[in-house]
């Protein structure tokens, strides 16, 4: 038993904890020779008895003995080459993972590891079989196990989940958009789904995923009591502009705006729930807050005032529609609403919207795991015109993104009602609905992990609760990828090009 420990400790000294099965075939004889220890048979016997090597303090060992242990890898696997290109990319760009020089037909595991800003570890893995040329290309080959299945070039990123033992209800959101998300990609021999930390990989690579392209400028906006951040694309401009609203959790969430600016759209991320004014006075802002933000954007010398869009997710979509339909100040080129609704007290602002939620609080449900389901809060869709934005009056193109498994908002019902309203009003040529099965509420930029449920605290609320967002990871991730591409196309077409009337179409994926 002693010598097994010794072997592990030797590997530790080199900084590469080894899977005993890997090293035993070649190295055990070397160790025995150096230390004159137990016979080969004894050592193998010891190994089969121990399930996993214990980590103890390594003894002092002569360097050449250490070298004899670790350099002797199985020769056929020493040539394994892993490359990921590009190694520095924007968050919404694809990469190609290529493994080469592996024995043909051998089972391999691709693994991704990310340490988030808040110190949690996330991982994903895919099981592959090397082809006859000894290669694996994640873009062409099929994963047959792990955290994602099928031909999924980006599966290692979107199927990232907190490692076992993590706190429940985590959600990955980048706070500092000026630094990249760093992911370590590795390839392991065989098919493994767990305990990667105890294995030694054959090869590893590091990739950076950026929310900001070089040259994008990040400008905090605090004038006129606004709390926001403006992201300007590189260049003289003028650029089309966009007002970017998130949902009921509040905070100033910058990453989507940073990404939009990396695509040529000057984007203002706006905090309207936990902004400076509200945190100091305890009072919510009113609708003029959004109009002020619009004006600040419109008057910026590098923003083209006549080409401004609004994009809202969840609660943000409520105010997007309110502004698009009713505001005499806000003149939008187009609007995008993700996982949202038109149901709202038409004449009210954020406070009145919160009051509406409070009045309907008994409509919440709970899942079997005691996760909060809020989707019924605004149902049934009212027929009272003062309780929903009159989208029949819209004059600009509107893109709705709907997750059919949205457990947080009644997005699907709202979209159907909006379609009816616009058909009756005769402006449904402006409407495009993207509807995705098995997709939940948090439809975010692509290749970032799907959050089916998480610990959530609404703005101004004291307690956190476990909220069910919905969605199944593979379908939700496909929806994020497809919807983002279509959102960018929609925005570019309306903001850069002329304003073509759009035929209504609903696409089910």
């Amino acid at each position: 038993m002693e010598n097994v420990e010794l072997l592990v400790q030797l590997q530790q000294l080199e900084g590469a904890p080894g899977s005993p099965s890997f090293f035993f075939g070649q190295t055990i004889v070397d160790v025995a020779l150096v230390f004159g220890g137990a016979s080969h048979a004894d050592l193998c016997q010891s190994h089969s008895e121990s399930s996993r090597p214990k980590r103890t303090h390594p003894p002092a060992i002569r360097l050449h003995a250490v070298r004899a242990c670790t350099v002797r890898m199985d020769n056929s696997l020493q040539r394994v080459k892993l490359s990921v290109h590009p190694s520095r990319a924007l968050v919404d760009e694809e990469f190609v993972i290529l493994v080469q020089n592996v024995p043909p037909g051998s089972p391999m595991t691709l693994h991704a590891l990310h340490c988030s800003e808040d110190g949690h570890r996330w991982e994903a893995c895919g099981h592959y079989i090397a082809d006859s040329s000894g290669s694996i290309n994640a873009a062409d080959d099929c994963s047959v196990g792990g955290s994602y299945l099928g031909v999924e070039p980006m599966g290692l990123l979107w199927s990232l989940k907190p490692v076992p033992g993590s706190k429940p209800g985590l959600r990955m959101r980048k706070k500092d958009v000026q630094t990249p998300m760093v992911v370590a990609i590795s390839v392991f021999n065989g098919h493994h789904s767990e305990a990667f930390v105890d294995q030694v990989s054959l090869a590893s690579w590091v990739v950076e995923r950026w929310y900001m392209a070089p040259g994008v400028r990040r400008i905090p906006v605090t004038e006129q009591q606004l709390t926001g951040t403006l992201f300007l694309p590189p260049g003289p401009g003028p650029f089309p502009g966009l007002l970017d609203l998130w949902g009921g959790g509040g905070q100033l969430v910058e990453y989507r705006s940073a990404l939009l600016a990396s695509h040529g759209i000057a984007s203002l991320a706006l905090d309207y729930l936990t902004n400076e004014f509200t945190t100091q006075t305890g009072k919510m802002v009113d609708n003029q807050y959004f109009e002020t933000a619009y004006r600040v954007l419109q008057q910026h010398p590098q923003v083209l005032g006549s080409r401004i869009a609004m994009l809202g997710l969840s609660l943000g979509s409520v105010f997007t529609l309110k502004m698009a339909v009713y505001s005499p100040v806000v003149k939008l080129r187009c609007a995008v609403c993700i996982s949202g609704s038109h149901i709202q007290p038409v004449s009210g602002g954020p406070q009145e919207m919160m009051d509406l939620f409070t009045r309907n609080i008994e409509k919440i449900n709970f899942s079997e795991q005691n996760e909060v389901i809020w989707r019924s809060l605004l149902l049934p869709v009212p027929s009272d015109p003062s309780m929903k934005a009159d989208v029949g009056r819209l004059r600009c193109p509107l893109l709705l993104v709907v997750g059919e498994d949205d457990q947080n908002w009644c997005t699907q019902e709202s979209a159907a009602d909006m379609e009816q309203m616009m058909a009756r009003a005769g402006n449904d040529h402006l409407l495009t609905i993207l509807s995705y099965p098995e997709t939940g509420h948090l439809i975010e930029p692509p290749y970032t992990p799907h959050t089916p449920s998480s610990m959530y605290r609404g703005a101004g609320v004291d307690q956190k609760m476990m909220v069910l967002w919905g969605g199944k990871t593979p379908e939700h991730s496909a929806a994020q990828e497809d919807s983002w591409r279509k959102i960018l196309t929609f925005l570019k077409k309306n903001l850069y090009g002329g304003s073509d009337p759009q035929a209504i179409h609903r696409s089910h994926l």
Partner: protein
Amino acid sequence: MFRSHVSVTTIRQVVEINTKHRLFSPGKLTPGKRIVGSMRWESSTRPAPLLTATPVRTLVDEQTCIKASFLPSNHPVTVCARMRSDEGDLWQSFAHYNTNSSGMFNLNSDHSVGGSYSGCEPMGLFWSMQPAPGEREGLRLRKKCVESPYTVQISLLEGHVSPNQDPGKEVAAVTAERWYMSPGVKRQEIRQNGLVGTLFIPPGPGPFPAMLDMWGMGGGLPEYRSSLFASRGYASFCLAYVGHKDLPGPSNTVNVGDSYFKAAFQFLQEHSQISADRIGIVGLSYGCYLTLHTGTLPGVKPACLIGINGPVGSSRELLHVNVTTKKSDQDQVFWSFDDQGYIIFKQTSLPSNLHPESIVKLEEITCPLMYIVGEDDLSASSIENADLIEKTLRAAGKSHLFTRLSYPGAGHLIEPPYSPMSRASFWVIKPEKLMTLWGGHPAPHAAAQEDAWRKMLAFMELSLRR
């Protein structure tokens, strides 16, 4: 670079004034400039055109696709690239394109009709860069700090203009980063056992194949080729042997001998993250001689050798084991000068001018050898040396080990791809300024760099990994 919004506002003000008065033009405009024509695009109803580079952060040896859209159709435009070297010098290039009927152009498929390069050259803006007018003379672009990228400002200008004479107005821009190191590559300064060098280790557990990397008599410690090798999965050790403050003796002489280069090779063999039997050696110019020489030292068994534009022997005195050598003035007799007074070193490395005892015993080579020739090399007699290597190996029945790449129009400094070239640059500044001619012409040299790099990596893959 940040563009102040002041200029845009000023131009807008001037437009209004100009259309009213046509007299007074405050701000940054030169008198007599036709405002109206160049304001055709500037309007309050259309955003600036969209200029993109995809991907926007790349390794130096990777391509990026530059495109523009939302421009007027069939319209002349100029694309201009600018960046600053580590020393602060401004390098730039430009090219003239015409948009198609959809108001777009794409450097991957469209042709430049003028500027720093012509024809269809996806990476032309990068390799055709030259020092901007007014910058210091005799420059050569070499990245000192490999941990930071080159930041390249790519601008779109109206019409077919020359950015230096008639700047025109920048209507769009994109910033690209060009990196010499992948994320996760580790850089270690090595100063042990008398060795002076920098080791680059790829990310991952290893063990890795490795390259010993040497440059020419210019000295110092250029790291950028090694960092790129590591970014491609090869551990790489760039070794200084002359002109470095941490080396013994005067900086203008080679004061290290066989034991130094052997120690460098052994350092790699003994490294725990390097496979001892998968180590190659690469060298440019005098580094090529050192590559061949070290590769045939007793006890040194490289897995492959790559020589670029260098001699098979030394014109200087023989390198003995543990005996320091001195750079002698004898080889100055081989220097020639062109009509501008630039030194041409070429004759120094002609096989007949080399010390016969110094000529490497190529017949003793047991591993694959790749030799790269720039046919317009004015600094070394590359063709003659390549011929000699080929002849020797064929006579020894080892021609199957030999690969020769030969590039017409390419000069001496065949470096990683998409890098600007210098046909001449300063050799020394003190006690007097002396320029040397490297040779090569931009377009064929760039093509050579791109092709040679790809073939070098494939050669390393075959020799070090299979």
